[in-house]
């Protein structure tokens, strides 16, 4: 045992030196995560801004112009032009110059003046169903506000039930608050897996792995020495991204740092374990890289990063239980937005530890088998 600690330590120091002294791997470790954080943080948003739309206004009255003005003035919509027949609507949707068309009937103002319901037709480009659905929501809320104004102005009887919405945890429903903590999880997974997934393969390629195997170090120590740098680099990188989320993207941090870091360590335990599994199978760095991405893509899709797990088919929902990112995303979002503590996250910690233990044992066995 007395020999173990200095040997493992030497291997960890060597691993870190190899990572940080080599300009290429240093760049891979620092560059892409920050670029991804910026790109995702700014580009990936569920909010719609500047939806181009056209208007076919057959009505001559003032009220239709008021309604159009509300749309044209909203930050979510951009009025492209007025069109003068039905065919032009069709054309502007087809050639994608507009995502939405408003068709106001000839009696719109007149009907409203008389206190009768008036109709507006909204045509949406359904080729992009997600955007169309979100745009429809905006349309509904603008029309609802228009109705309220009409009611107030004309002293009419208000509708029987009025909806008051309040979003807890994220009062403005700012989607960046939802996405940025998620990216922390993805990038930590990526870095943790890359550092461990490629390290054995890199040594196999260089021939240094043989050199390591003929030393008195038992395989378990080599495995440990390969796993620890993943933890260190993963924690450092995770911390950097958390700091950027708080101070750059101004996502409020309401929970407990301790709870978050326990989650981070459990998550790294699982990711490093899977990275080592890939490592013990891959002979070349290319295979290792392929393995990491083969795991990463489904892990992200199944994690609930973009689409809720509850919407997935039941069978797929069971598969998500194997995805470590799923658990860590809950911890991350819970820590940032919900103010969650250790007790709240316990149901997320133990599956991560289980996945980590399992993958470490498998990696150890594969490693031994590979040598045999």
């Amino acid at each position, binding site marked *: 045992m007395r*020999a173990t600690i*200095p*040997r493992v*330590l*030497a*291997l960890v*120091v*060597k691993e870190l*030196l*190899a990572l940080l*002294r*080599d300009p290429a*791997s240093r760049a891979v470790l620092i560059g892409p995560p920050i670029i991804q954080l910026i790109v995702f943080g700014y580009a990936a948003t569920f909010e719609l801004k500047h939806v181009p739309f056209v208007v076919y206004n057959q009505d001559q009255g003032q009220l239709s112009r008021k309604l159009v003005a509300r749309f044209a003035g909203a930050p979510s919509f951009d009025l492209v032009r007025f069109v003068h027949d039905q065919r032009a609507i069709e054309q502007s949707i087809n050639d994608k110059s507009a995502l939405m068309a408003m068709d106001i009937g000839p009696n719109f103002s007149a009907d409203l003046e008389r206190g009768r319901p008036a109709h507006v037709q909204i045509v949406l480009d359904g080729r992009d169903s997600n955007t169309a659905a979100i745009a429809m929501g905006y349309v509904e809320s603008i029309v609802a506000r228009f109705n309220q104004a009409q009611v107030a102005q004309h002293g009419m009887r208000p509708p029987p039930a009025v909806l008051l919405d309040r979003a807890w945890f994220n009062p403005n429903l700012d989607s960046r608050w939802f996405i940025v903590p998620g990216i922390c999880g993805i990038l930590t997974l990526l870095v943790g897996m890359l550092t461990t997934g490629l390290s054995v393969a890199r040594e196999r390629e*260089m*021939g*240094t792995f*043989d*050199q*390591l*195997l*003929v*030393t*008195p*170090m*038992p395989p378990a120590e080599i495995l440990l020495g390969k796993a620890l740098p993943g933890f260190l680099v993963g924690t450092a990188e995770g911390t950097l991204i958390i700091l950027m989320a708080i101070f750059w993207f101004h996502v409020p941090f309401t929970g407990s740092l301790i709870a978050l870091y326990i989650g981070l360590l459990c998550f790294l335990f699982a990711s490093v374990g899977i990275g080592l599994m890939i490592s013990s199978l891959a002979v070349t760095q290319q295979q290792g890289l392929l393995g990491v991405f083969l795991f990463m893509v489904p892990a992200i899709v199944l994690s609930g990063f973009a689409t809720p797990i509850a919407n997935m088919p039941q069978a797929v929902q069971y598969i998500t239980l194997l995805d470590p990112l799923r658990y860590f995303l809950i911890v991350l979002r819970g820590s940032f937005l919900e103010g969650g503590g250790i007790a709240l996250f316990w149901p997320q910690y133990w599956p991560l530890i289980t996945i980590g233990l399992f993958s470490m044992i498998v990696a150890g066995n594969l490693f031994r088998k590979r*040598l*045999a």
Partner: protein
Amino acid sequence: MSAIAVNNLRKSFGKGTSRKDALKNVRFEIAEGSMTALIGPDGAGKTTLLRLLAGILQPDAGALQVLGHALPEEALPLQAQIGYMPQRFGLYENLTVEENLTLFADLHNIPEDRRKPRFDELLTMTALGPFRARRAGKLSGGMKQKLGLACTLIHPPKVLLLDEASVGVDPISRRELWSIIHRQVIHEKVTVLLSTAYMDEAERCDHVLLLHEGEILAQGSPADLVAPMQGHSFLLQEAAMTPRALQSQVARLPDVVDTAIQGDGLRIVIKTLDPLPLPPDPAVQGQLKPVPARLEDAFVSLLFNRNPHRSIPLPPAAKAAAHDAAVVEVKSLYRYFGSFAAVKDVSFSVHKGEIFGLLGANGAGKSTTFRMLCGLLPASSGTLRVAGADLRTGEAAARARIGYVSQKFSLYGALSVQQNLSFFATVYGLHRRRKRDRIGWALEELELKDYIAVNAADLPLGYKQRLALACALMHEPSILFLDEPTSGVDPLARREFWARVNALAQGGTTCLVTTHFMEEAEYCDRLVLMSLGEVLAEGSPTEIKGRVRRADRPNPSMEDAFISLIEEHEHVSRRAS
């Protein structure tokens, strides 16, 4: 008219301050229909020069003309008239021999009616006819190389550029390759420029270019190059000392340029023409007779004059123990990869303090045997003992008794010399005082001090070899495994390396070495000669050579021995079947 003319050629690689000249002021001409050898240590710029002549690299400055075409402007019309065979020829391993030939014929637009006679001719010449339908991946190393050459000769070319076509190939295939190339020059008037690591090949060329650090150090016919060396070479025989002990004594004398063990004598090359003053020690006195100079003498002495500083490791004070205890024992060892037997019934034993060689071509099973001995690969059957333990199944601590220098000197390229040494020292359980002492020893003894902060990846090859040796010696192992430690290293570095191994063996360290250079057998106390996974012969170099001595060949070389033993072995196995 000259087929190749090069004037003031310069080519450099890298950026900024790390930009280095790979070639500078290179100037030479090659006559049409002649054969020229390009020799020089690894990294001298041989491959760069050949690639420039093949029109695949752009020169930075200078004029290049091949067959009257100026390069790089007229590379395309030129490439139809030349054949270039790179170090690793791009055969398609999943295609058969014939399919490979067809593919290269397609690439060169050979008309259908001219293909069959050309294929037949090439297949007869390379003796690959019976293997037409075999996949290239299933051919032996020598056969692959011959197929590569056949594909290069398909159009047929007027100029042939060959980059180390025969390195690592077994001696029989090497001779065959050589006769094919030679026939191209004699019968087809092809101009050949080939780079080679073998001096005997260079000696048979019309012209030799010696390249060193990107410059042409010397050029001329082999006879011209050797002429100034005549009278400088001697053979010292019948001394009381063993040739190896003799070598460490003589090599230290100030005027000695080079020493090499040859059979039971020592070949000495000196700087001056005066008779060599031998040390007064009576054990050194023997019969000193002049011998004809070789091209290698010229090569070594040119390098020596350029860089006269040379360290000769002193033999350690402790004398070798009695050569009795077997420290490595191998009995009927087999290793299969699928149905392919990489190692067949190999047995040998190595005694303490011996230099033991495993000789053979690439693919002979040397490295596989080595990996099994070091515990990196399990044996399919047979017994292995290294220092009394099986390193694979035994305790990890048993591995502390061995040191291992792997092929290509595997080191951590991104770590500095100091960091590499420190890492291996700690991994081998060295601490504080001892660690400091050993690192100090390595920096001093292997002269790595000037490179202490340099990344291992940026070291010159000779220094990589030293660092790899230093890392393997950190814990003073009793057995040292060296896998192809001299491949690609220049002759001076090779000599230095063997002197170090010699000193280690005299200090009692057992050294196991693999090599595909037959002449390096002379450095071994005993060796096994391997071919296709089997041991052809075991014994001391003199014993093995003695087995093939005939009236018409009183002084056979190790290569002669290897070839006759393979032929004899094939004869026996054919009769047995």
